């Protein structure tokens, strides 16, 4: 079996004195979509930041394609085909939409470009219309599309979406979820973090529930849906 694109083994991390992640094991295989669930402050963003090396691991390992990358710089991990739409979107306010996109453009490790600019602009026609506007002139929804489109410009194998629909109007959320489904159908592996549990469960192959920095449950979406008590206890729905 091919090794996971990205894997954590016994991963611990935190801020200052405090430990947030208390030994997390998780793996994403090619083409697989994982819903990383959990209430506010349970450590989802912290896990993503540690997987990408933005926060150092206190213990445990991060592996990419079976290789230990626990000490590798963030930009090298990204170059392995891991793209992130971070919490807060990370759109460059002083760059135009086109500059935001082109800055990210890069073929994948095999030199292929499954997501050329034209395809990103067809996926998000709004971005084509706003091409010359600066990042800070966009609405929240447009910024979110730009953040996703920009991540796709790196032609990733794994796309990590942290709260991609947060703060958006319902219609826009639906549009973002439609896009995430399209991206899924293109065969990209995903880690999806989102407050709308139902929508996450409808796009992922597997859900993982994080409680106070530990993964407490892992399984298929229908198994989670079939267990209202579990949903209520850990996700508050």
């Amino acid at each position, binding site marked *: 079996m091919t090794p996971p694109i990205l894997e954590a083994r016994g991963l611990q991390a935190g801020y200052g004195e405090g430990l947030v992640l208390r030994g997390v094991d998780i793996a994403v295989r090619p083409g697989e979509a994982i819903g990383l669930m959990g209430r506010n402050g349970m450590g989802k963003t912290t896990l993503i930041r540690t997987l990408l090396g*933005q926060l150092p691991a206190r213990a445990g390992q991060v592996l990419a394609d079976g290789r230990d990358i626990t000490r590798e*710089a963030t930009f090298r991990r990204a170059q392995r085909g891991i793209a992130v739409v971070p919490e807060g979107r990370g759109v*460059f306010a*002083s760059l135009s939409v086109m500059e935001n996109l*082109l800055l990210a453009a890069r073929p994948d490790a095999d030199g292929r470009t499954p997501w050329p600019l034209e395809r990103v602009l067809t996926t998000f026609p709004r971005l084509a219309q706003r091409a010359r506007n600066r990042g*800070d002139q966009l609405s929240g929804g447009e910024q979110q599309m730009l953040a996703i489109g*920009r991540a796709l410009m*790196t032609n990733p194998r794994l796309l990590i979406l942290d709260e991609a629909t947060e703060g958006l109007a319902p219609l826009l959320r639906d549009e973002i979820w439609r896009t995430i489904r399209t991206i899924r159908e293109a065969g990209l592996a995903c880690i999806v973090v989102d407050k709308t549990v139902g929508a996450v469960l409808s796009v992922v192959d597997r859900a993982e529930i994080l409680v106070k920095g530990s993964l407490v449950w892992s399984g298929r979406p229908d198994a989670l849906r079939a267990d209202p008590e579990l949903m209520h206890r850990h996700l508050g729905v």
Partner: protein
Amino acid sequence: MDLSGLFAQVLNGLQYGLLLFLISSGLTLIFGVMGVINLAHGSMFMIGAYLAYVIASLTGALWLALPLAVLGGLAMGAALEAGLFRRFYKREHLDQVLLTFALILLFEEARSAMLGNDFHAVPVPAILDFSVPVTAEFAYSAYRLAVLVVCLFVALLMFLGIERTRIGSAVRAAAEKPEMVDLLGLDARRIHLLVFAVGTALAMLAGALAAPLQSVYPNMGESFLIICFVVVVVGGVGSIAGAFWAALLIGLVDTLGKAYLPEIAGLVVYLLMAGVLLWRPSGLFAPGR
């Protein structure tokens, strides 16, 4: 008030402002992108000026100092960044201040050991040693005009490089959200090297251009450094456009202040800075955050 005198002062102010821009553009990018307050940036200006003095006295061909200042500045900036500064980006500001202050002392000591502590005038190149008649009764130094033109040309190049190229957008992105630049898989170390090398080259070029205007002397970099920090703060840390407009503004205000309000001339620029900061605490052109 006599008009041609005012006109001359305005030209002086613009020319001074443009020189300030050359120094400040590097200072603001090094601060904005790498988060380092580089006190030794003024030393680069000083080295450029002394380079002009040495070249002019050895060869008599001052113009030679310009390409040498640019090339030498690129090399020196790259060496300082790769050899020293990159180890300090994650350190406390106090460590950075100590490092860059130590560099000032080192550079000044080296200057003193090699060239002594005397003031030296650097002659204006003979070919530009005349006045250009601007109006019937007013003429302006050809060398000052040439400095103005060279600075404008460099500013234009900087603008095109920053605003119209992919590398330029990477620099702006790094000044705004460095963590996001990493997440996109861009190697920030290359951006840092480039910013430092170009910034140093521009400061040395400014020194070489300024040498004939005001002679060369010990610690000449520091007086410029302080006013350039005012430019950086007023323009908005990390913004080239901000540095440009703030440099022109401060060049004009300082020059006109000295000419027409000599009693408070030393204060005018700082009053201006305080005013701008009260009105817009992150400067006129702070890149979005």
